[in-house]
């Protein structure tokens, strides 16, 4: 499936700023089930200095600074990405290995550091009391890992209420667990906390979801903005992705941008602005299939 993505971030400052430093993680990369056909990015006003590096998690991280007076900052990232069906779509969940075997394997030096690092707690992923018990309801003794994971995904989706504006960046997992409310970041952080609390390795995935549903299908939650979901490590399959917000096993509609321990590692845009007043942020994401774009052009 091919998608055209336009991701626009606008910052408007109350009073002008003479200097800002920013880091940005919003460049999709080639992956086993994802090819990036094109990517272009514009920053307004144009930065005095810009530099891109691979971060610790192999994401493309851009640092830039604007060193002249400005009242508005706009970053536009446009990409064209083709997705294919992942190998895990053909797996029979009940035939995967018991989750405990994976957990034990992770404790050995057989497992690479790059995988093992994702079973440790991190800035936004701590283990509130009772979370292990919550996870173990799905991850019962000897249960095949993928089956257990799909069950957890489903339970979170039905136990939680999608509530925009209820949480913010500093809301801890414990609060999300207690209120069972939040947005996709909270769903993702909570799912990860469940998995890590029982010794499994889970990553945070940031990305996009198609804006308009295919004809006859309902519009999905998470469109029109950046989205987040989870990847669980299963030996033999590698990182398998799940979207608890939509109760889905991720297929070919999720465009991946970055992977990290949690949101803090892959914040799409953050910075420090030298300015006296407040600022407002507006993000818009548009994900469309090429044929939709053609239709749009014709109607205009």
């Amino acid at each position, binding site marked *: 499936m091919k998608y055209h993505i336009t991701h626009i971030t606008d910052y408007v400052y109350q009073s002008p700023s003479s200097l800002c*430093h920013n880091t940005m993680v919003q460049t999709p990369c080639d992956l086993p089930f994802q090819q990036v056909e094109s990517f272009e990015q514009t920053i307004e006003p144009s930065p005095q200095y810009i530099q891109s590096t691979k971060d610790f998690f192999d994401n493309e991280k851009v640092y830039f600074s604007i060193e002249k007076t400005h009242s508005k900052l706009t970053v536009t990232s446009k990409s064209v990405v083709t997705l294919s069906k992942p190998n895990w779509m053909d797996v029979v969940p009940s035939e995967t290995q018991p989750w405990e075997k994976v957990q034990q394997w992770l404790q050995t030096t057989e497992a690479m550091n790059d995988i093992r690092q994702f079973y*440790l707690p991190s800035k936004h992923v701590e*283990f509130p009391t009772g979370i292990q018990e919550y996870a173990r309801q799905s991850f019962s003794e000897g249960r095949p890992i993928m089956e257990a994971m799909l069950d957890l995904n489903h339970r979170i989706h039905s136990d939680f209420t999608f509530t925009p504006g209820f949480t*913010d960046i500093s809301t801890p997992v414990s609060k999300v667990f207690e209120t069972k409310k939040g947005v996709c970041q909270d769903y993702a952080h909570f799912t990860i906390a469940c998995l890590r609390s029982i010794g499994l390795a889970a990553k945070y995935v940031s990305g996009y979801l198609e804006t308009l549903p295919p004809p006859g299908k309902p519009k999905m939650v998470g469109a*029109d903005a950046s989205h987040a979901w989870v990847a669980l490590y299963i030996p033999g399959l590698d990182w398998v992705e799940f979207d608890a917000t939509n109760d889905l096993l991720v297929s070919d509609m999720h465009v991946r941008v970055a992977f990290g321990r949690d949101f803090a590692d892959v914040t799409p845009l953050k910075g420090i*602005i030298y300015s006296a007043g407040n600022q407002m942020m507006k*993000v818009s994401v548009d994900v469309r299939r090429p044929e939709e774009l053609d239709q749009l052009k014709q109607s205009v």
Partner: protein
Amino acid sequence: MINSYLQEIQSSDGKFLDELSTRDGQITPKWVKLANYYETVGSEKVAEGLEQVSRQLRENGVTYNLYGDRDGLNRPWNLDPIPMVFDAKEWEFIERGLKQRAHLLNLILKDIYGSRQLIRDGLIPFELIYHHQGFLREADKIMLDSELQLIQYSADLARGSNGQMWVLDDRTDAPSGAGYTLENRAAMTRVFPELIRENEVQKISSYYQTLKDTLSQLSSTNIENPRIVMLTPGPANETYFEHAYLSSFMGYTLVVGEDLTVSDGHVWLKTIKGLEKVDVIIRRVDDVFCDPLEFKGDSQLGVVGLMEAVRQKNVLVINPLGVRVLENPGLMAFLPKLCQHILGEDLILNSVATWWCGHTNEKNYVIENIDQLVIRSINAFGETVFGGNLSSSEKTDLINRINTDPYLFVGQEVVDFSTTPSWINNKLVARNAVFRGFMVADVLEKDYHVMPGGLSRSAPEQGVFLVSNQSGSISKDTWITGKRTDIVADNPVISPSRKLMRQLHVMPSRTGERLFWLGRYMERSAYTIRLMRMALLAYNEADEDIHVHEDVVLSALLVSLTNLTGTGPGFTEKRTLKNPEKELLSLNTDIYRIGSLAHSIQSFLSNGYATRDRLSLDTWRILESVSNELNKVRKNNASLMEVYDALDNMVIRMMAFYGLNIDNMTRTSTWHLLNMGRFLESSGNFCVLLRSLLSKKYDMETDKELWENTLRSNESLVTYRYQYRSNLELRSVLELLLITESNPRSLVYQVLKIDNHYQEMVSKEFGHSTELSNIRKKLLEAVTKIRLVNIDQLCTLNEKKNNYPYLIDFLNDIERLVREASMLISEEFFNHTSSRFMRIQTAQLPEI
């Protein structure tokens, strides 16, 4: 003295080894000479030595700050006159061990931020690194162009009861203490020169020379004349004294985060001349505080964008960011194996026995033996507790936490540190002691240099082990006695004065602003003191039953006090004037009241403290004594009479501060900024004071008294009498005070001085320019107005209002011009600092 010490050791339970006494009551060979000396000279001489050493340190302003204690700021540094002693032979062993440990840690560090093969192979448990706060993923794969990545390293050691030296702690992030060590040695050398000679105490200067060489070496690959700065968290930091002292000793500019900015991927120092590129930063700011963009977003101590400059190798940060991962007690458990694996040899210096709870067997051992162990977090700022000291509920809680996150905890054996002779309460007694050694990379030789000496600390109480400066330990100089067998030539001491000169060429804007305000507050304090003394004198001399508000002179003095300090309404209100005592005390002692004398002096002191790397040693001593006088004024229930006496001392000290700077300070920007501040303040104060005291006309006698007081407060009474030899009259008073250019207390002289200093500094720093700057325009306008003034007109009385309107207007005019000049000066030189920007985190959770 020595015999009673030996007896004390003999009668103790023998739990601890003693450095001076063997188990059977003999004096250890390394202590024989020293023991003889103390025995011969006796207690009095040692007590005298302590007195001298303490005075030396106090006068040099050596302090150690305590966090969270307002009055704890600038606590004097304690030094025991009795040193910690190692003989050359035992030292060679320690030195070899420390070198090996430094090399080992360096190789581990390179692996952690490189291939991480040691973790892959299971030689270092994965969680010990990946779960450690010091493992900075942002610093991964960033290396200095050197075999040695660990540049500065220090280790805390103690001798156990079996005679072995144990390593208790590794300090790698921003190790402190090398500056205090230097001060300790300087004080000891001054007080006990012959003792140091007789015992052939090894010199420590080579350490500082190696550090200097290494820094130039590291940066010389791309730059010929590197700009090196030392980044300090600022005057509130516990070891700020050391930062100021070391930076001026080494010849590096002392900066705080605000002094630096990142532009174009480079780091720049904001100076009064503009931005200057920085090549090397020696940091005393903890790792995650260094760049709020990439680490702790709320840090005010760092430099935004620093990590990017580091990544691009546009600046070197020493120690490199990420090195704290080695400050990890958990690592200690694995060092012997790692040493074998990496260096193929046995670890020379053992770490204190450590069990890492990340392994189940070890965790169980720790929990079973929790009463006998010290439990520590693997993180540097984590907790350290004696299991045995915990209540049962605290213990349960701790065990729960160990079970929840076992990777984060270690159990460590309690080491019975050896005792060493210490001078406590005028007696030689045995106290447990810890030694801190300092290592620095010699990148040219690809080896580590170990300082032949170090910082020892002993507990003030008997049988106490937790020794830290925060908990009130006493420091000791550390002597390595006797000739080395592998003697190397000692490098000459770096001459601090020569280096200091070079460093002064750069003036960070913030430092410039501090110096400017140092001058202003000095003058403001002195002016206030003079007026206050006159007011207090008049008040104390007044009759018991006098109504203050009816005494015109006293009232005028009090009202001018309110005006001068800007603390209105104050004495302009009748009820305060009627009972002035409370307000007078508040104006003297209330440190939190802006404008009060206590506040001005405190501001004078804090600006002095923040610029202490620019001020001479003697000047520090004066700051110290001013601080003591201030404490006397502030002490509870001080009467106005006591305050008066303290003010007397204070004004003398303020004048001494100024006099010393005239004598000692080189005529650089430091000097000019200090004086511009001083004369700006005095010109302004002058106008306020004259307006308060002279603008009204009273009866003849009152007028004369006010004129006399005005002259006195301007220290011009004697000059007046000498010059006019006549009765007081307003015309002559104004002539002398306003336009007599030969009178250094006259207004015209003060304003001319501002202009002179401004002009000199600008021509030195920026070269000449034809057009007059706006600052000079204001100043010259003021000077011309004063020179052209018609004194007779100023003395013209408005009969209706009974005041002198021309004089009032004139003073208002000059005050305004001076104030405008001051604002322009701030804008021109300190504009980087005046607008302290608000930092906004733009990280937000998107809606979805």
